[in-house]
C-alpha cells in the first residue's frame, strides 16, 4: 500500500496539517502536498476510470504530464472539472471528486466497455459513419454520448465566483522554467543587464535537480539553487514568478503565460488567475524533459508509475507509493529510483533492465545496495486489476514466455526522457532526432524566427536535450548569455557553474516489451492512458492505411486528450514507424500547439465579463427610455427602445398603439443612433458622386437627397439621406449599424485610391442627438415652439433649415421614414434630453407618443421603404429592389457601376422586390420561401422567392410583407405559397410594395 513515510519530504511542512475531502471522505495531508501526493499518502492508489474502457487508473506521474489523476474540484461558484491532481496544491477545505464513473469509483458500470473492447477498435467513431443512418441515430450516438466526457460541465446556473485579469509585460529575455537550467540562464542574462522574467510552473524553484542530487561547484545542488534564487531576487532587472506557466509562444516574440495566484490559497483576496501577455526580445525555453512510459501488457494498472515520479514522491513529499517497487528500464536514470527506494527503507525486489549489457556506475551502486538486477529482460505482464500485485518477467528479445514471477505493489518504469520541446515548436522551431538518446531535440539551426528574421527562442538544458546536470548548466549559461547579447546587452565573463555528470551507459530504445509481444499482449499495452489508445490500435491504423502521423493521431485519438500526449506521442509514433517500416524522423511528430497545459477560461476572458464585456452606447435620452419602461433592442453596441409597453400591455399591442398614435396624431422617435458623417472639402461633391449611386454634387445647399451606396462588387451596402450644408460640406446619414463601417469605407477610398482629392471625413454620430417628430400634428407642435417659418411653402419636404425651438438652436431635416409629415431635429448631444422633454411637453395636447424601432419598421414597411439588412443581405443590388430611380445614368463612374454591368447582375431572372399580401390577412413567418413546382437535384422543393420583411400592419389591420420574387413585378395579382416551419402554408398575393399612401399625400403636406 502507499503511505506517508516517517521521514523526508522536501516540499512539505509536517508541522502544518491540512484537511481536505476526496469523494466525500475526510483526508489529511501537509502544507506543500499536491493532491496527488496527499492521496498516495492516504493509500488512494486508484484515482479514476479511463475514458473509453473505464479501466481503473492510478497516478502515473508527478507533474504536468499526468494523464489519469483528473478531478472535479470545488462546488458551485468554485466548481471546475479536469483538475490535474499532480499540479493541484492542497489547501484546507479542498473538495475533490473523481470523474468518469457511475455509480462509484470502485464499482463502475461502464467498465463493461472493456469487455466490448473487441468492438471498439481504433477509428470506432469514424467507422460508425459508414453504417446505415438509422444505426448512428439509434445505436451509436446514444452510446457515444453516454461514454463521452471526462469531468462534468459546471451547472448552467452557476457563475464563476472568482475574478481574473490580464497583465501586459515587456522584457528583453523571458526564461520559461525555473529548474537549474532556467535559473542559470536567467542569472547569465540578468548579470548582463537585460530585463529578465523567469517563471516556474510549480511552487518551487530548482526543478528535479534537487531530487536527482549531485554537486554544483563542489556543493550540493540544493545550495546552488538557493544561492542562485537569492542572487536573482537581488537583481532589480529580474522578475521572478512561481506558479506561472509559459502557455504558448507566438509570432514576433509574443508569449502567453498563465499565473495561478490563488489556486492554493482561495481565501486570500485578489484575482485567481492572471494571463500575462508578454512581448519578449528572446525567449529561453528551459522547460526540462518528461520521462516516457514503457509499453508492456498491463502498464495501466494502478501502481505502474514513471520511475522519476516514484522518486519524486519519496524525496519531495515523503510518500511511499508502495513497499515493494520493481523497476523496469532501458536506461541508467531509473536506477536512481531504485536507490532512492532502497534508501527510504523500502524494498526493490528486482530491477528489470531491457539492455543485455545493463547499466553503468549507477547500476553498480544499486548492486552494491544488494538489489537484484536482471539484464536483457522485460515485463511480460503486470498482475492485478485495481492495483499492482506482481509482474511476470520475460526475455526482452522474446515473445513473452514467463521466466519468473515477482510480487510487488509498484512498477517504476522508464523508457528514457523526451525534452519538452513544445514551446520551442509552437512558433515553428524544428526538431532533430537524436539516435543516442532516442528523442527529438531542438535543431538550433532552424529556430522560430521573429520580425527581423532572427531566431527568437533559445532552448536550454534538458529541454535542449542536454540531460546531464553539468552539461545542462553549461548549455543554459550559454543560452542566457546569448539571449542577453542578442537583445543588446554585454554578457559578463563569469564562467558557467561546474558539475560532474555521472558516467551513464547508453540507453537502448525499447518501444514494445517484450520486443516480440503477440497480439494478446499488445492489446493490453497502453500508449495513451487518458484516451485509451493501445499499441494494437496504432498498428491497426497503420494496417488500414493511416500512414501520416497526423491522420493516425485523429483516427486513434492518440495524444488528443487533455494531456495532449505528453507521455504517449513519442511511443506512439515509434510504434507507427515500426509498423510502416520507416525510421522515426521520417514519420515525424504531430504539431505542438499552445497552450502547454490547459488554462482556465476565466483567465482567457480576464476582466471582460458582464457589463464590461463590451461597451454599451447610450443616446442622450437613454435614461428617459429606461425610466419609461422601454423594452430594449440591441443594435450593435447601442440599445434602442423596441417599444414602450405600458403596464400589462403586450409588446405587439404597444407597437400597434405607437403606430396608430403616430399615424393619427403625433409620435416621437429617438433617432440619435443614426450615423452622421461630415464630408467636407472642395472635392466633397465629386467624392460623394463616386460613393453614392445617384448624383450628390448637384444637390443644392439647404436640400436633402436619399442615396444608395454600393460596394465595388455592386451590392447595396448602405442607404441614407444626405444634406448639403454648404458648397463644401455634406452631412451623410447612414444606418445605425453602418456609421463606423461607412466611415471606414470612405476613409479607405480617400486614403488608398483618391488620395489627391481634397476631402475630409468626420464621424459626428455621437456629437448630435436627433429626434423625429412625426405625424399629422408634427408641424403644430414645432410652430408652438418657434417663430421660424415652418409652413409647407417656407419649409418644403426634403429641405433642411436652422430652427430655434424655444431658444434651443436646432437643425431640422424635413424627411420621412414613416410616410407621415415628419421633421428630424438635430441638436448637440448635450441638448438632446432637454429637447426631448420640451417636445413631450409641447406635444402633450396631441397625445405625443414615443415610439420604438418596431413601430419604425412597421411604418416603413407600410410605405414600402427598404431596410438595409432586411431587404439586403450582401447579395442584393439596387436594381433588385426597384431603385433604378436612385441610380444615375449620367455619371461615368461610381463604386459598383462596373460590377452592375456584369451579365449575372443584369440577368432578368434575378429575384425582384414586391409587396406580399396574405390572402387570409395572416402574417407570413420571417424568412419563409415561396415554393415553385418540381424539385431540385437534391430532392428539395424548387423555390421562386423569399420574404425579406413581414409584419402585422395595425394601419391596415392585416399582415403585410415584402419579398424578392422571380419576375415579381410582372406577376402582380398572382398568388404564391410560402410554407412555414409551423406546418401551415401561407398564400400571398403579389402586390405593389407601397401599401399605404401611394401618392405621398400625407408626408408632403
Amino acid at each position, binding site marked *: 500500500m502507499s503511505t506517508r513515510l516517517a521521514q523526508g519530504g522536501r516540499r512539505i511542512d509536517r508541522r502544518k496539517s491540512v484537511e481536505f475531502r476526496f469523494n466525500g471522505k475526510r483526508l489529511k495531508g501537509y502544507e506543500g502536498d499536491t493532491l496527488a501526493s496527499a492521496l498516495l499518502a492516504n493509500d488512494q492508489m486508484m484515482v479514476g476510470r479511463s475514458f473509453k474502457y473505464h479501466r481503473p487508473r492510478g497516478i502515473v506521474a508527478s507533474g504536468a504530464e499526468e494523464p489519469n489523476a483528473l478531478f472535479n474540484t470545488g462546488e458551485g461558484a468554485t466548481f471546475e472539472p479536469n483538475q490535474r491532481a499532480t499540479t493541484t496544491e492542497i489547501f484546507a477545505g479542498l473538495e475533490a471528486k473523481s470523474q468518469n464513473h457511475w455509480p462509484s469509483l470502485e464499482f463502475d458500470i461502464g467498465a463493461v466497455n472493456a469487455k466490448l473492447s473487441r468492438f471498439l477498435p481504433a477509428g470506432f467513431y469514424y467507422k460508425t459513419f459508414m453504417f446505415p443512418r438509422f444505426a448512428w441515430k439509434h445505436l451509436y450516438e446514444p452510446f457515444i454520448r453516454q461514454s463521452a466526457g471526462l469531468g462534468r460541465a459546471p451547472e448552467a446556473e452557476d457563475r464563476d465566483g472568482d475574478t481574473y485579469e490580464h497583465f501586459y509585460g515587456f522584457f528583453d529575455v523571458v526564461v520559461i522554467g525555473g529548474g537549474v537550467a532556467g535559473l542559470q540562464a536567467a542569472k547569465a542574462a540578468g548579470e548582463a543587464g537585460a530585463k529578465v522574467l523567469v517563471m516556474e510552473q510549480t511552487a518551487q524553484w530548482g526543478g528535479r535537480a534537487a531530487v536527482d542530487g549531485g554537486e554544483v561547484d563542489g556543493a550540493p545542488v540544493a545550495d546552488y539553487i538557493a544561492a542562485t534564487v537569492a542572487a536573482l531576487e537581488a537583481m532589480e532587472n529580474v522578475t521572478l514568478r512561481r506558479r506561472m506557466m509559459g502557455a504558448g509562444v*507566438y*509570432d*514576433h*516574440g*509574443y508569449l502567453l503565460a498563465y499565473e495561478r495566484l490563488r489556486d492554493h490559497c482561495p481565501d486570500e483576496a485578489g484575482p485567481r488567475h492572471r494571463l500575462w501577455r508578454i*512581448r519578449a526580445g528572446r525567449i529561453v525555453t528551459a522547460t526540462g524533459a518528461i520521462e516516457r512510459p514503457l509499453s508492456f501488457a498491463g502498464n495501466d494498472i494502478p501502481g505502474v508509475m514513471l520511475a522519476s515520479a516514484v522518486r519524486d514522491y519519496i524525496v519531495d513529499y515523503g510518500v511511499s507509493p508502495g513497499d515493494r517497487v520493481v523497476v523496469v528500464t532501458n536506461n541508467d536514470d531509473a536506477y536512481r529510483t531504485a536507490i532512492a527506494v532502497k534508501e527510504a527503507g523500502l524494498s526493490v525486489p528486482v530491477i528489470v533492465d531491457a539492455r543485455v549489457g545493463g547499466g553503468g556506475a549507477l547500476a553498480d551502486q544499486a548492486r552494491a545496495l544488494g538489489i537484484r538486477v536482471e539484464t536483457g529482460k522485460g515485463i511480460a505482464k503486470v498482475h492485478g486489476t485495481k492495483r499492482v500485485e506482481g509482474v511476470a518477467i520475460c526475455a526482452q528479445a522474446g515473445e513473452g514466455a514467463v521466466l519468473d514471477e515477482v510480487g510487488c505493489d509498484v512498477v517504476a518504469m522508464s523508457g528514457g526522457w523526451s525534452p519538452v520541446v513544445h514551446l520551442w515548436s509552437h512558433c515553428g522551431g524544428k526538431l532533430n532526432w537524436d539516435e543516442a538518446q532516442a528523442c527529438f531535440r531542438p535543431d538550433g539551426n532552424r529556430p522560430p*524566427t*521573429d*520580425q*527581423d*528574421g532572427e531566431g527568437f527562442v533559445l532552448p536550454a538544458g534538458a529541454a535542449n536535450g542536454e540531460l546531464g546536470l553539468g552539461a545542462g548548466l553549461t548549455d543554459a549559461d550559454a543560452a542566457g548569455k546569448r539571449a542577453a547579447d542578442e537583445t543588446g546587452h554585454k554578457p559578463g565573463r563569469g564562467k558557467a557553474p561546474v558539475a560532474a555528470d555521472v558516467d551513464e551507459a547508453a540507453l537502448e530504445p525499447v518501444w514494445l516489451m517484450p520486443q516480440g509481444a503477440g497480439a494478446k499482449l499488445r492489446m493490453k499495452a497502453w500508449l495513451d492512458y487518458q484516451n485509451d489508445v493501445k499499441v494494437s490500435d496504432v498498428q491497426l491504423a497503420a494496417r488500414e492505411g493511416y500512414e501520416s502521423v497526423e491522420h493516425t493521431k485523429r483516427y486513434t485519438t492518440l495524444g488528443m486528450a487533455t494531456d495532449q500526449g505528453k507521455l504517449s506521442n513519442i511511443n506512439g509514433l515509434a510504434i507507427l514507424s515500426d509498423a510502416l517500416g520507416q525510421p522515426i524522423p521520417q514519420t515525424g511528430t504531430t504539431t505542438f500547439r499552445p497552450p502547454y497545459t490547459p488554462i482556465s477560461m476565466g483567465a482567457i476572458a480576464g476582466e471582460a465579463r458582464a457589463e464590461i464585456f463590451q461597451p454599451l452606447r447610450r443616446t442622450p435620452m437613454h435614461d428617459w427610455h429606461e425610466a419609461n419602461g422601454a423594452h430594449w433592442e440591441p443594435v450593435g453596441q447601442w440599445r434602442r427602445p423596441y417599444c414602450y409597453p405600458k403596464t400589462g400591455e403586450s409588446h405587439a399591442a404597444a407597437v400597434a398603439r405607437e403606430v396608430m398614435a403616430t399615424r393619427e396624431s403625433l409620435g416621437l422617435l429617438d433617432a440619435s443612433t443614426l450615423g452622421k458623417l461630415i464630408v467636407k472639402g472642395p472635392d466633397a461633391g465629386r467624392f460623394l458622386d463616386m460613393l453614392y449611386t445617384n448624383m450628390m454634387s448637384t444637390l443644392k445647399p439647404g436640400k436633402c437627397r436619399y442615396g444608395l451606396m454600393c460596394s*465595388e*462588387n455592386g451590392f447595396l451596402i448602405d442607404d441614407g439621406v444626405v444634406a448639403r450644408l454648404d458648397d463644401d460640406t455634406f452631412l451623410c446619414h447612414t444606418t445605425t449599424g453602418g456609421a463606423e463601417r461607412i466611415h*471606414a469605407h470612405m*476613409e*479607405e477610398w480617400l*486614403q*488608398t*485610391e483618391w*488620395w489627391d482629392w481634397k476631402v475630409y471625413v468626420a464621424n459626428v454620430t455621437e456629437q448630435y442627438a436627433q429626434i423625429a417628430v412625426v405625424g399629422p400634428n408634427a408641424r403644430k407642435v414645432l410652430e408652438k415652439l418657434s417663430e421660424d417659418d415652418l409652413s409647407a411653402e417656407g419649409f418644403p419636404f426634403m429641405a433642411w433649415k436652422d430652427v430655434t425651438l424655444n431658444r434651443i438652436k436646432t437643425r431640422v431635416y424635413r424627411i420621412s421614414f414613416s410616410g407621415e409629415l415628419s421633421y428630424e431635429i438635430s441638436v448637440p448631444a448635450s441638448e438632446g434630453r432637454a429637447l426631448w422633454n420640451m417636445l413631450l411637453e409641447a406635444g402633450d395636447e396631441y397625445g405625443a407618443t414615443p415610439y420604438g424601432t418596431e413601430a419604425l419598421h412597421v411604418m416603413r414597411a407600410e410605405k414600402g421603404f427598404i431596410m438595409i439588412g432586411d431587404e439586403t443581405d450582401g447579395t442584393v443590388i439596387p436594381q433588385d429592389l426597384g431603385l433604378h430611380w436612385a441610380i444615375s445614368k449620367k455619371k*461615368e*463612374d461610381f463604386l459598383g*457601376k*462596373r*460590377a452592375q*454591368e*456584369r451579365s449575372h447582375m443584369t440577368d432578368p431572372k434575378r429575384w425582384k422586390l414586391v409587396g406580399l399580401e396574405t390572402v387570409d390577412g395572416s402574417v407570413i413567418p420571417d424568412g419563409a420561401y415561396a415554393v415553385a413546382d418540381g424539385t431540385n437535384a437534391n430532392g428539395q422543393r424548387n423555390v421562386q422567392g423569399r420574404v425579406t420583411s413581414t409584419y402585422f400592419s395595425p394601419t391596415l389591420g392585416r399582415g403585410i410583407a415584402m419579398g424578392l420574387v422571380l419576375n415579381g413585378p410582372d406577376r402582380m395579382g398572382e398568388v404564391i405559397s410560402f410554407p412555414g416551419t409551423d406546418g401551415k402554408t401561407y398564400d400571398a398575393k403579389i402586390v405593389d410594395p407601397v401599401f399605404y399612401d401611394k401618392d405621398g399625400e400625407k408626408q408632403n403636406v
Partner: protein
Amino acid sequence: MLILECPYCGVKGEETEFHGGGEAHLKRFGPGSSEEDFEGYLFHRENPKGVHLERWRHVNGCGKWFHVARDTATLEVFGSYSAQVTEPPQEIKDAISAKRPGWSWREFA
C-alpha cells in the same frame, strides 16, 4: 501575433491595433474596362509563399492606411511605407532584396 510599425504614427504596435486590408498596389478598373481586367482587379490576388506587399490600417490608432512588405511564410517584416504610392519606394525594395534576392511582385521587382 505580429508587431507592425505605423509609418504615420512612427510607433510599433500589436497586431490587434491594426486591421489587414489584403493586397497592396491594385490598379482599379471601372466602367468601360474589359471583363478580364475587371475580374482581375476585383478577384485575383497574389498568394505567394514569400514576399507579400499588403495593406494595413491602424484602426485602433491614427486610422491611417499604410503598406507593409512581409514574408508570408516566415512573417519577417521588411518594412512599412506610405499607402499613397503605386509601388514600394526604393528603400523598401532594397530591404527586400537584401533578404530575398531575386524577389518579384507582379510587374515590378
